[in-house]
């Protein structure tokens, strides 16, 4: 914008007036920061202070506001002026709360504050006012892929909230695995007996809901677009394709049971009287309350052994390495099928660790009361025969034992129907400890058939389950506007899947609503800025399209990046990746940070006043430093902290610029990366660490010590540690001496 008019406002409240020379700060803003309007106020965030700024915006034409007061995380409501670019200068949490109130440090405290004012003005001068993404869509229909309990629940919940739903199911009927159950594990008091599945009522609910359109025998054969404007092809098995537009997608494609044939040592596939849990449900449904009969000879079953963790929690790498969570409760329920119809049936559950989530402990007790025998042991072999022999090691008595049974039920695990593994080489499945097609017919079918550059399906995290941060941001996937729920996300039982589906429905609604307003989805929810690139400068290196954690960037016919703004989460990982620095956001760019770095006053080599640039992730590290300030934990007055959207957005040019400008150290503070990542943008921190692993060569090229740049993982709870890291850097610099690069 050509006619930038910066207004700088210095607050004197919260002790700022007593601790700092605000008149000098105003002079800095005016002379160095080029602010046309400069004012101070005793209490900037109160009604009068805010009114003063508002008046300048309206009467004086101030369109860039620099507020030198508290952290950008505080008083966001008071300083939330619309239609102007806002920069926050953190004098309270960033300066006076982290420096002692003594005369000796008064000078460097003032220098710190002055630098932050310079940085704020420099940032403001390079910012633009975010314009709403012009290409946003406003479709608010929800597509649910998968008609099991998860998908059905999502559909009902979204419809209840007033949204139109398309429910796509590949088989001929809704209901999924739940519809195949005889009874389900109780989810309400008294947790004593198996209860009705409730499926007929749910089916009726969906049939009678005008907002829900059901597509049976159908799959999603193409998904393109972005939140608010997805275009979907729904193909019928019998042929024929319908194209629909939706605003958000819920993927509830569920699971397949692990194939028992992969467990021949446990009799899987070797005897008809060895079944998995789904097989037993079938037998129980056939019996319908009467005594359950054997598949082989139709004889009434007098003894049954349940083998827990069959092909699960396998450390040998042959079968599933994980626990599927529901199977203990399921076996307890199934043992009750036998005990309830005939208490004289011997029902034995052989387990290594019995885990009963929810209120399963009561259910477990109820089964014990009914006389189900629970034996802690590890089954080594099931010998087929007219009478099956279950050989196991009794783990309490440390004894080899044999249990004889008419029927053996193997508690096999859940294998996610998560589609193709887009990260595997050549698109072939490659999942730790198992081949992903385990339960299916050998070939992996894509669920969503995304036309995205990064692949057809959602990325996976582990074991073939969709990547979805299970604690901080469940349902969030790495494809904006697409939410996964149910056992495709992680193994879970019906109750958990129902909750999951409800959560995913709400996230999908939120995404569609945000998209319709041209705003970003989680975690920069409400952000109106979006990335743009300077086409003439682009070298088509494809780093941005490859590194975008959310697959938001495709390529056009001429192989230039094609930004799908509505898919973007505004992390800036593309901006950090771009070697020619042509990608920027209106209010966050290589320049907005770069000029802040350059605005800092770097004293000469003999001043003994080093400068440490801290690039801190705004999600975790920056709040941690703010909280440290609230606790008055002090850190070096030589640090200059710049919040960044994600460490992934850090362009190495900033570090180069800082070092050539004479900074003595650079600290990058991002979130935990890797498998248990805490990065809000999933891969941002990882990308930053990867990029920074190559900085050593740059440093050596500049004849600088490698210790001057450090990348570290900081959690939001690291309130003590984050200031300590800064102080360590200050000590390191004291040890190795100031940078020789100062002018």
């Amino acid at each position: 914008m050509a006619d930038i008019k910066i207004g700088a406002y210095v607050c004197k409240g919260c002790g700022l007036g007593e601790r700092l020379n605000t008149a000098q700060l105003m002079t800095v803003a005016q002379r160095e920061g080029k602010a046309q309007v400069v004012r101070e106020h005793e209490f900037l965030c109160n009604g009068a202070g805010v009114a003063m700024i508002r008046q300048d915006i309206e009467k004086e034409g101030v369109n860039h506001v620099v507020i030198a007061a508290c952290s950008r995380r505080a008083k966001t409501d008071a300083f939330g002026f619309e239609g102007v670019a806002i920069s926050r200068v953190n004098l309270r949490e960033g300066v006076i709360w982290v420096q002692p109130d003594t005369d000796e440090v008064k000078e460097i405290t003032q220098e710190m504050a002055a630098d932050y004012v310079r940085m704020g003005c420099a940032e403001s001068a390079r910012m633009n006012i975010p314009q709403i993404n012009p290409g946003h869509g406003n479709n608010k229909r929800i597509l649910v892929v998968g008609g099991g309990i998860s998908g059905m629940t999502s559909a009902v919940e979204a419809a209840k909230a007033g949204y139109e739903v398309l429910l796509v199911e590949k088989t001929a009927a809704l209901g999924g695995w739940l519809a195949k159950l005889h009874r389900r594990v109780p989810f309400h008091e008294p947790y004593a007996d198996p209860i009705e599945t409730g499926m007929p009522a749910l089916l009726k609910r969906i049939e009678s809901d005008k907002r829900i359109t059901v597509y049976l025998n159908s799959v999603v054969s193409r998904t393109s677009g972005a939140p608010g404007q997805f275009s979907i092809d729904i193909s019928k098995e019998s042929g024929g394709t319908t194209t629909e537009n939706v605003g958000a997608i819920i993927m509830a494609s569920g699971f397949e049971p692990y194939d028992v044939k992969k467990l021949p040592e446990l009799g899987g596939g070797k005897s008809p009287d060895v079944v998995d849990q789904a097989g037993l449900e079938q037998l129980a449904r056939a019996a319908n309350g009467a005594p359950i009969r054997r598949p082989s000879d139709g004889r009434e079953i007098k003894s049954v052994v349940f083998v827990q963790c069959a092909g699960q929690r396998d450390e040998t790498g042959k079968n599933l390495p994980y626990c599927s969570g529901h199977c203990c409760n399921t076996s307890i329920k199934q043992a009750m099928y036998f005990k309830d119809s005939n208490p004289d049936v011997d029902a034995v559950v052989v387990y290594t660790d019995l885990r009963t989530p929810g209120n399963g402990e009561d259910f477990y007790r109820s089964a014990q009361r009914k006389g189900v025998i629970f034996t802690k042991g590890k089954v080594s072999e099931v010998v087929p025969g007219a009478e099956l022999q279950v050989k196991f090691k009794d783990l309490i008595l440390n004894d080899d034992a044999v249990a004889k049974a008419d029927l053996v039920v193997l508690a096999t695990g859940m294998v996610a129907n998560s589609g193709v593994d887009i990260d595997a080489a050549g698109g072939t499945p490659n999942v730790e400890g198992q081949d992903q097609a385990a339960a299916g017919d050998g070939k992996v079918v894509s669920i969503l058939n995304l036309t995205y550059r990064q692949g057809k399906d959602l990325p996976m995290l582990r074991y073939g389950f969709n990547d979805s941060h299970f604690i901080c941001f469940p349902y969030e996937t790495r494809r904006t506007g697409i939410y996964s729920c149910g056992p495709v996300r992680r193994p879970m039982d019906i109750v958990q899947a129902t909750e999951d589906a409800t959560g995913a429905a709400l996230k999908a609604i939120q995404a569609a609503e945000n998209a319709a307003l041209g705003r970003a989805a989680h975690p920069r929810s409400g952000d109106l800025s979006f990335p743009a690139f300077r086409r003439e400068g682009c070298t088509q290196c494809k780093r941005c399209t490859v590194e975008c954690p959310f697959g938001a960037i495709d390529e056009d016919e001429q192989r230039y990046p094609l930004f799908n703004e509505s898919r973007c989460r505004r992390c800036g990982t593309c901006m950090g990746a771009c070697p020619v620095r042509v990608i920027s956001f209106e209010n966050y760019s290589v320049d907005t940070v770069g000029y802040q770095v350059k605005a800092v006053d770097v004293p000469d080599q003999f001043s003994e006043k080093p400068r440490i640039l801290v690039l801190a992730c705004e999600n975790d590290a920056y709040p941690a430093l703010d909280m440290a300030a609230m606790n008055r934990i002090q850190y070096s007055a030589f640090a200059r902290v710049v919040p960044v959207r994600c460490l992934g957005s850090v362009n190495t040019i900033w570090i180069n610029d800082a070092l050539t400008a004479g900074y003595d150290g650079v600290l990058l503070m991002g979130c935990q990366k890797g498998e248990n990542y805490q990065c809000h943008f999933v891969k941002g921190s990882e990308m930053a660490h990867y990029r920074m692993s190559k900085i050593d060569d740059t440093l050596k090229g500049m004849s600088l010590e490698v210790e001057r740049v450090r990348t570290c993982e900081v959690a939001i709870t690291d309130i003590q540690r984050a200031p300590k890291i800064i102080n360590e850097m200050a000590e390191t610099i004291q040890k190795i001496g100031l940078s020789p690069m100062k002018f």
Partner: protein
Amino acid sequence: MSERNNAMVEKYRNDFLKEVEANVEEGPWVKMCMQCGVCSGSCPFGPYWEHPPQEIFMMIRAGKRDEVLKSESMWMCTSCYNCIVRCPRELPITHIMHGLANYAHRLGIAPKMNPTRRFAKLFWQNIMKGGRVNELKLSVGLYFMDGFANGVKKGLAMLPVGIGMFKTGRLNPLGLLGGGKCKGAGDIHKMVKKAQEIENRRKGFAS
């Protein structure tokens, strides 16, 4: 006595858990054990049990009848109640241990020379005689449990304690000559006899 044992083996075949549920005090609780092992870990004598309570419960479910009933383990219980207090499933473990010991004793297959069992027998005889415990006779009886020579030895070893107790009026040597009976000891005998009849009838011991 072993006839009784044979009768029970015949009656319950190989379902020892059912036998325990029907005949052992608090036996129906055995199936509720969830094998956490807190009882075994809490027992002050834990390391000295051949089969700590957790294992006993598992053995019952596994049908190891002889190993359980002929075991010395449950005789180790000193009724400190640590296990009962701590059991997350609220099993009355102490009572079950005593119940098992008592059941084994009544079947006549409890270990003959188990000191706890022998003491319990002495105690019972002692208390049943006068309706109240004659402490002097009980201790002297214990000393001479393993023969005359042993008794003299133990008695001499305990002599200083005895003299001390006598001096402070805590021990009446005349107790050895009898006396100390409670009033109406005969009535107590009748009550106990009746109670035993009821118990035998209930547990199926025709005596």
